[in-house]
């Protein structure tokens, strides 16, 4: 079904919406909502890495859980290899799960301490149906080797491993079904710098070797720049800017992206840099308002921003931004680099 000109994307997300209901404050009051995802649309081509960045509370992890079909979605569509997964029952999803696997943030919490590594890593194979013991063992030992662990490690327990090694176990578990898509939610945030580099290199090598596609969620822009081909910046449950990593990082078209990039401390400069500072923190998840999501904290906000919601417009080749003044922001970025 794959044709040369229009290959089916590994992941297509269309207008995904997820609102969580809050408890009623009183008997007759309308319950409030947390507007976690407000219509998110993107797609990832095979073998590419797609990064999602944003501050906490912007809906990154909700997006991951919805893409993985781990919770009910309000509306929208998630297609994995062209197949719709929203609305499927548990039994219908089970055989599909081999195509998409997840790596979690905390390598201490995500591995069951009572199970040995062999059992942890082999667990997703249950989704494939019955396979022989010999085959299971051979697949476990192959996958452990490909993430840089030893086949003898199968009988060990998670507490015998360091944080970086545990994350390798979690990656091995995700890889064992030969998935097309791996959703990684902050996979290196809990690791030390020197170990983080090892895991990032491993993720890159595995992509070269097996052609897996990553949806990579991180708050660390430098990590995303290193690993991802494309990036989406999220704010309050919406994508505010999306584009090729190099374009987006060199000429951001949304003030929020600009500010996020500027806020990262740069080692080696030694001195404070001149930059725009962001006041306040992410608020407004529980209200629906007119205008731009970023209006409260934006240094450039004008009248129009409070009234009209900026659409996600094209500002360059495969580069989209939702800002009324994206030309201005890009102009500034260009003149700064000169």
């Amino acid at each position, binding site marked *: 079904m794959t044709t040369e000109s229009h290959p089916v994307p590994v992941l297509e997300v269309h207008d995904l919406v997820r609102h969580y209901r809050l408890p009623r404050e009183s008997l007759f009051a309308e319950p409030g909502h947390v507007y976690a995802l407000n219509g998110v649309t993107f797609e990832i081509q095979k073998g590419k890495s797609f990064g999602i960045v944003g501050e906490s509370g912007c809906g990154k992890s909700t997006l991951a859980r919805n893409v993985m079909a781990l919770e009910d979605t309000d509306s929208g569509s998630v297609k994995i290899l062209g197949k719709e997964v929203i609305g499927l029952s548990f039994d219908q999803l089970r055989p599909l799960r081999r195509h998409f696997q997840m790596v979690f943030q905390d390598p201490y919490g995500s591995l069951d301490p009572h199970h040995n590594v062999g059992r942890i890593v082999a667990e997703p194979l249950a989704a494939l149906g019955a396979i022989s013991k010999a085959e299971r063992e051979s697949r476990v030992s192959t996958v452990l080797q490909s993430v840089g662990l030893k086949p003898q490690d199968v009988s060990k327990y998670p507490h015998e491993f*360091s944080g970086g090694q545990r994350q390798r176990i979690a990656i091995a578990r995700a890889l064992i079904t030969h998935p097309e898509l791996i959703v990684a939610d902050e996979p290196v945030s809990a690791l*030390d*710098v020197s170990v983080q580099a090892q895991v990032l290199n491993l993720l890159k090598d595995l992509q070269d070797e097996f052609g897996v596609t990553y949806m990579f969620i991180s708050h660390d822009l430098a990590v995303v720049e*290193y690993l991802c081909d494309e990036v989406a910046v999220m704010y309050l449950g919406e994508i505010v800017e999306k584009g090729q990593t190099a374009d987006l990082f060199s000429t951001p078209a949304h003030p929020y992206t600009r*500010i996020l*990039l500027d806020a990262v*401390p740069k080692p080696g400069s030694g001195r404070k840099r001149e930059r725009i500072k*962001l006041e306040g923190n992410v608020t407004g998840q529980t209200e629906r308002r007119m205008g731009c999501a970023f209006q409260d904290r934006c240094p450039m906000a004008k009248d129009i921003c409070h009234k009209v919601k900026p659409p996600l417009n094209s500002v360059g080749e495969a580069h989209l931004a939702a800002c009324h003044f994206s030309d201005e922001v890009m102009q500034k970025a260009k003149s700064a680099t000169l």
Partner: protein
Amino acid sequence: MSLLNINNLSVILETNKGPARAVRNLSFRLEKGETLGIVGESGCGKSMAALALMGLLPERSKTEGQIKLDGQNLLEKDDQEMCQIRGNRLAMIFQEPMTSLNPVHTVGNQIMEPLRLHRNMSESDAKVETLRLLDRVGIPNPQARFDNYPHQLSGGQRQRVMIAIALSCQPDVLIADEPTTALDVTIQDQILDLIQTLVREEGMSLILISHDLGVISENTDNILVMYGGAAVETGKTEQIFDELIHPYTQGLFAAMPKLGRAKNRRLVTIPGTVPDLISMPMGCTFTDRCPLATEVCQNTPPPVVEVKSKHFVACHHLDEARDRKTEELFS
């Protein structure tokens, strides 16, 4: 005389598997108004060194060496004397603002507590001072926030409250242990800015502990790089970033993904992981992971050499480490 003079400080933790030297023979000085960054990975002893300064080490631990504050050795003080020093002379901000604030007391009461205990203020004076402090650390509408509980505040605001508590007794030295690690970059920016401003305006000295070289490089005058409990490189911040010498410092810097670097270049990795403190070699702590390590590194602690004015490196193979490029070292 320096404000704080740490001399040959060692911290030994008693564990079930035997004694673990969490800090070994650490020496540094801190002048009035100076900001010092301590950088290293988890288990390098940076937090233990800070806790030793505060006299807050866990019970089954031993200390050796000297911590001199204005010439008085803090390690010889008893609990009661330390209580007078903690808060009044030394104050600390911890990493996780949710767990270091008490969830069942209002933030106002938590800021008032040190004011009443250490500065013997009356309740009404303490309240006025608390409101001033809340305003000072940039919390909007202090009157309303006074009666809030920690869970009603955001992460950044909680850290601001922690800073207000630390500031309450006008300490001489502020120790900030990973103050922004749990926060978003934009909030991190705000908090670091606040700490900088306060330190400058109140004339405090600052010890900033972080694993993030970026945070350290933008916020400190001097740096101390630790590995396995020992200082491996110290010096002026600008000078260290101009010329990283110790193989560990080089590796750590190269392993960090940096914005604006070519995407296709692989990250340099330091092989192995941070070793267990119990099984640390007698000599240089970095021996097991160091590409230059030889027999001598295993058994003899490395000499500390002043390579440039006030830039010290502890390495047996100094010349080799200086001459070889980082990429060659870790390939």
